[in-house]
């Protein structure tokens, strides 16, 4: 299937010479939730801004909803809704006016029933006549979401939607994002919360220093990550793994006092019980056991550091 967004060889050099993106290639599939992860300054917002038409690209091409974002900017932009990272809202306008303004700006005829639904879904209906400066930060964020949804976009960008948002609202947002996806909206979000990406995304991309360093299905990533490690603290140092244990993926730590067993949690038989029994048979005593599972955060950190 044709991707709904395709970014080809996009570079961005800001005035002053800083290169924020380096030959980025990325394809977003229609209807998916894509999470873009990366440390501060990696270029996430720059990439999103280019796709949305706020920042000019220095090199490369971008297609959105089948249209070139430069040549066919009207059609491309009309398909996109953007919730920016910064809480930039009007101050004195009412919630209702600012949201209907957005709909008009995107070339859609007035539709009060639709706007009402959006505001109700975001629990903003009661506040529709309130001027925006009187709203709390979390509410302002929701107003920005309402503005982005006001023109019924096919593609929604959420640039750190849950930064500074309380747990409850974050849950609400996740539910809302899933609901939008169910209706066929493609969602691209950036986040610094790995658990958010784990929870929400179908695919995950990692960007660092202006380069995409990994794009994969979340499930594939999780599978790689689905490995568990069991650390067995030995009573006495061990230099060699006994022959009857050689069939297991066991390693000895450098100081020879820890035996590390790596296994797949998906397997029926993890082999843990067997190993412990055989250790006993060999008279190897241990004083403690500790198991750990690598998380998205771990690969994230290792990848990003690997890119240093």
């Amino acid at each position: 299937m044709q991707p709904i967004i395709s970014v080809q060889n996009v570079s961005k050099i800001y005035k002053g010479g800083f290169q924020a993106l380096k030959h980025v290639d990325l394809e977003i599939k229609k209807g998916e939730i894509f999470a873009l992860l990366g440390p501060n300054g990696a270029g996430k917002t720059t990439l999103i801004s280019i796709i949305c038409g706020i920042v000019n690209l220095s090199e490369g091409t971008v297609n959105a909803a089948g249209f070139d974002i430069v040549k066919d900017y009207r059609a491309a932009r009309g398909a996109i809704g953007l919730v920016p990272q910064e809480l930039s809202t009007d101050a004195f306008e009412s919630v209702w006016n600012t949201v209907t303004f957005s709909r008009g700006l995107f070339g859609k005829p007035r539709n009060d029933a639709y706007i009402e639904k959006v505001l109700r879904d975001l629990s903003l209906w009661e506040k529709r006549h309130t001027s925006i400066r009187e709203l709390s930060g979390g509410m302002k964020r929701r107003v920005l979401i309402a503005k982005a949804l006001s023109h019924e976009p096919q593609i929604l960008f959420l640039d750190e939607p849950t930064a500074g948002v309380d747990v409850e609202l974050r849950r609400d947002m996740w539910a809302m994002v899933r609901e939008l996806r169910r209706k066929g909206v493609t969602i691209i979000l950036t986040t610094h919360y790995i658990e958010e990406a784990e929870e929400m995304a179908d695919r995950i991309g990692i960007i660092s220093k202006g380069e995409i360093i990994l794009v994969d299905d979340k499930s594939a990533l999780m599978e790689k990550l689905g490995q568990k490690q069991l650390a067995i603290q030995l009573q006495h140092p061990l230099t060699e793994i006994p022959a009857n244990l050689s069939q297991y993926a066991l390693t000895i730590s450098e100081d020879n006092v820890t035996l590390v067993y790596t296994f797949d949690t998906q397997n029926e038989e993890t082999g843990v019980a067997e190993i412990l029994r055989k250790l006993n048979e060999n008279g190897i005593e241990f004083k403690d056991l500790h198991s750990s599972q690598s998380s998205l955060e771990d690969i994230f950190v290792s990848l990003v550091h690997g890119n240093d």
Partner: protein
Amino acid sequence: MNFYAVKAIYKFEMARTWRTLMQSIASPVLSTSLYFIVFGTAIGSRMQSINGVDYGAFIIPGLVMLTLLTQSLSNASFGIYFPRFSGTIFEVLSAPVSYVEILLGYVGAAASKSVMVGMLILVTARCFVDYEIQHPVWMFAFLVFTSVTFSLFGFIIGIWADSFEKLQLIPMMVITPLAFLGGSFYSIDMLPPFWQTVTLFNPVVYLISGFRWSFFGVADVNVALSLGMTVLFLVLCIVGVAWIFKTGYRLKD
């Protein structure tokens, strides 16, 4: 053409006018009334008529122009500067709108507001002095042309400015002096010959002179020249705006 977008921007900008009614409409009307009382009624009663026009009436076109220039500049420059300053400009930049549509919305609203204020001042002036308009259609044309031109100019200033101070700079330091010295309160042939020549480099002279002609049929400079200059400024501003949009100057990184 994205008419919904033009309408949305226009409505949004006009809503700002209604919300700040005192500042945007009442205050220019009040300050011009003060000019009428001081210069028109009090001082004017002791002044000779100029070119056969009573001094109180003579200053009306000048005062309207003065207000038109400052209002157009401040409305349009603020209208575009503020979203840049607050960051809300991202939405306009990400919307499926062309630059022409953005201009129609912002400059259209600013110019409409100026025309409204100008008309209001004309009505207010009627309370102080008797006057007639010989060429009402030309009068209105000058009013609209000037409002549009200076709203465009204001738009350019609003894009160029990167601080509130700079936003005020050109209106205060350039336009107000030019307007005062452009014959708002006197006819330029009341000046010594040397200063008459210098004055001809002041673009505002042509605007005021043409506008005054539409009222009283008398002018400092040829009407055709006035009209030509007005159109020239309009074209210059359009070229400036076109350049800004083409290069994305101060709008897009």
